């Protein structure tokens, strides 16, 4: 058999797709550093090194060539998505455990690139939040609110040696996320207004600092769509799912359920909408299916945030929708040219 097409356009490769994803994450990363300090940079580099190491090991064990698969960029994308989903000062071993499950289990045990039914980064996240719930709530405080802003070396030793800077206690560095604050407050029978009044973590729409990160993810996400790497259906449906579900609950009981704009302004919502739910491998491939996938994931995110046992629901909602993909795809096959119109 001859090769089907003899000519190819320049710059079409999996590496290009993955590099563009990383490039479009950059605005979010930069704002993250600006608002929360150096921790995230260390975590991103550490996660990337782990991802490449585990990927190389898995490829070696499976007898695959290293070069084409290590340079495809997919492992680094997984690493960044996981690193951006966990607290930026998370200890080194947590990232290690997360990456082993993301790359080793969710990706390679399922057959490697293109074969995984679950988003690898979200599997890593799920393992971590189930196994180490306390560490997973210790997020960096926004620099504007922190009692102490750890510099690069202090962040490094905190992550790798678990040593705090002299004379600084942990509470000066970390804080609960806005969602976590809401959750804890509600469990103590406070109303949303009371919770908002009692904490400085809340910003204009979402959280101090984090709402800017969310905005930067949105900018990067729109760029990703403009580069035609992600389809519009998934992020739009995902955010619509959050907005509609949260809007209904908020309308139902304003004192108990967080406002839709607040929910959308969480960085996890924007990261999920544009960078995680849009993972082509584990997502739906039909236009209608993507709308269903996004809406379902958005709906479940809010349901888990409001009624579940975890402060955030993006990871679990996307994993649950990953499960439904074969069914969604089979049900939403688009019309083929020359067949009867619906």
């Amino acid at each position, binding site marked *: 058999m001859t090769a089907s097409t003899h000519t190819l356009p320049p710059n079409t490769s999996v590496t290009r797709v993955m590099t563009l994803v990383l490039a479009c994450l950059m605005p979010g990363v930069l704002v993250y550093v600006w608002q929360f300090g150096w921790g995230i940079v260390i975590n991103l580099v550490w996660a990337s090194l782990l991802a490449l190491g585990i990927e190389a090991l898995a490829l070696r064990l499976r007898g695959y060539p290293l070069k084409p698969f290590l340079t495809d960029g997919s492992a680094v994308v997984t690493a960044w998505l996981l690193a951006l989903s966990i607290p930026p000062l998370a200890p080194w071993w947590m990232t290690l455990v997360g990456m082993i499950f993301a790359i080793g289990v969710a990706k390679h045990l399922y057959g490697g690139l293109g074969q995984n039914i679950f988003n690898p980064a979200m599997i890593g996240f799920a393992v971590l939040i189930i196994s180490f719930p306390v560490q997973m709530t210790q997020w960096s405080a926004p620099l504007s609110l922190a009692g102490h802003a750890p510099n690069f070396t202090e962040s490094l030793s905190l992550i790798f040696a678990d040593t705090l800077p002299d004379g600084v206690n942990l509470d000066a560095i970390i804080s609960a996320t806005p969602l976590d604050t809401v959750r804890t407050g509600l469990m103590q029978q406070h109303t949303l207004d009371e919770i908002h009044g009692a904490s400085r973590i809340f910003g204009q729409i979402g959280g101090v600092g984090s709402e800017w990160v969310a905005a930067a993810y949105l900018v990067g996400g729109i760029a990703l769509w403009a580069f035609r790497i992600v389809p519009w259906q998934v992020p739009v449906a995902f955010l619509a799912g959050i907005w509609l579900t949260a809007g209904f609950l908020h309308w139902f009981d304003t004192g108990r359920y967080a406002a839709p704009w607040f929910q959308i302004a969480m960085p996890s919502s924007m990261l999920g909408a544009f960078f995680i739910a849009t993972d082509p491998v584990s997502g739906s*491939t039909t236009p209608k299916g993507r709308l269903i996938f996004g809406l379902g994931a958005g709906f479940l995110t809010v349901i888990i945030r409001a009624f579940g046992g975890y402060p955030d629901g993006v990871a679990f909602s996307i994993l649950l929708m990953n499960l439904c993909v074969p069914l969604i795809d089979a049900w939403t096959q688009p019309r083929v040219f020359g067949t009867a119109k619906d």
Partner: protein
Amino acid sequence: MRTLHRFPGGIHPEEHKAESSARPIHAPFIPNRLFIPMRQHIGQPAKPIVKVGDKVLKGQMIGQADGYVSTAVHASSSGVVTGIGLHAVAHPSGLPDLCITIDTDGHDTWTELQPLDWQSLDPAAVRGYVRDLGIAGLGGAVFPSSIKLDPKNQPIHTLILNGGECEPWITCDDRLMRERAEEVLQGARIMQHLLGAQTVIAGIEDNKPEAIAAMQAAAEKLGLQIEIAAMPTRYPGGGGKQITQTLTGLETPSGKLSTDIGVQVFNVGTAYALARAILHGEPLISRIVTVTGHVLGPQNYETLIGTPMGELVMHAGEREGTTGLIMGGPMMGFDVQPEAPVVKATNCVLVKSAELFPPKPRELPCIRCTECARVCPAQLQPQELYWFARAKNFGKAQEYNLFDCIECGCCSYVCPSHIPLVDYYRFAKSEIWAREKEKHAADIARERHEFRLFRLEREKKEKAERLAAKAQTKKAEAPTLTTDEQDAKKKLIAEALARAQAKKAGVAPKNTDNLTPEQCAEIAEIEARRARIREMAKKTIEPEKHL
């Protein structure tokens, strides 16, 4: 101005037309040896009607159309037949095929040509003439034109002249329209007459402004009611279903032809060949071939059918660093040997080099990005078809409309994982065809076996009846049997009859009762022929795709 419609999907690869389109069509040269394949069209190959040692004249028929879906083959120049046998041909499989070898004498002496008074002749007679002059679609699918010019039960309202030429590098239709627009339109006029079409539209992609102007001028000069439409340049805009939609807005139903919706599409080259055939009596013995890519002088050549492609490349100036030849364009063409001769389907010989056509990067796994689905003009889900083809899940592949794939290669072109998707679809299609063939053969064998069982049972029954009748007469002569014995016998016979009838009911569902073995053989033969035709019909879903 006609409102143009947009077909789904498509891509815009680098055009590379300027390399070969600037120079006029080069006059034909006569190679020392011509290799003329008998299978140059879709359907049954032509039957050789000359012997080794025969002298032949230019334009003399050397292969006769064999059956309805077939067309004749002619000597492209005068000379002596020196061989009838297998020779390398242009086919993706790379297998040789039956060719007639002619050692040319250099005189290029024509046989007697007879122009045809097409307006006064019966259309059926004209079609027979078209078949005997070897006219087949020159857009690439080489479907016998005599069949496409027969409207049968389906009236044709629109005739489309396909001057799309959407494949990169190829410019043979562009040059043809620039230089011979009048004859193209005369051919279209004959086609319109035979089809009874009210509307004639010529669709030309707007990257060929000179061709559009030339066609418009020719239409005015001849005073023909023909629309010249400039279509947006987008591959595969010259595909039969695509050009039909662009120009008429009509969507060709899945698994059907554009004729089913009253539209017939002919390549402009075919119209030209038809005009030469009808108005001058010239059979199809040459065509315009774009020789381009890694050659010194890329140009269009009027080329005798049977000229080895390597010789054609030599004429255009072979260069160091040639890595191979493609017949057709870079999207749908396939690799050929330089010994393979130019045939009616050869619109382009594209010479490869490592710079122009670097080896494909390594194939990576599919990441389901659905770029392929976005560019698919058939609106298929190529990424799903790929999984099904890979998993040999052919039933599912058919369910997902595998056979609506026109193999245009847009999906392979955009795939970031560099998966040769079309190869997977061709593999799946050929496997399905092979299985259907096998199943059909098994069906015939089973029917034969069942018929044999039925026959044996019937013979047994007849024998029993004969014996019973005999016994009856015996009984009449000597009624010595007791009633008990009679009853037992009757019972036996009744049982045998019931058995035979039950078997017959289960075995013979059709009107094949009481047939002689000869009749059965005949039926089997007819069935086999039907199967062949069905298969041909399947293969020719796109009779006139000029991509």
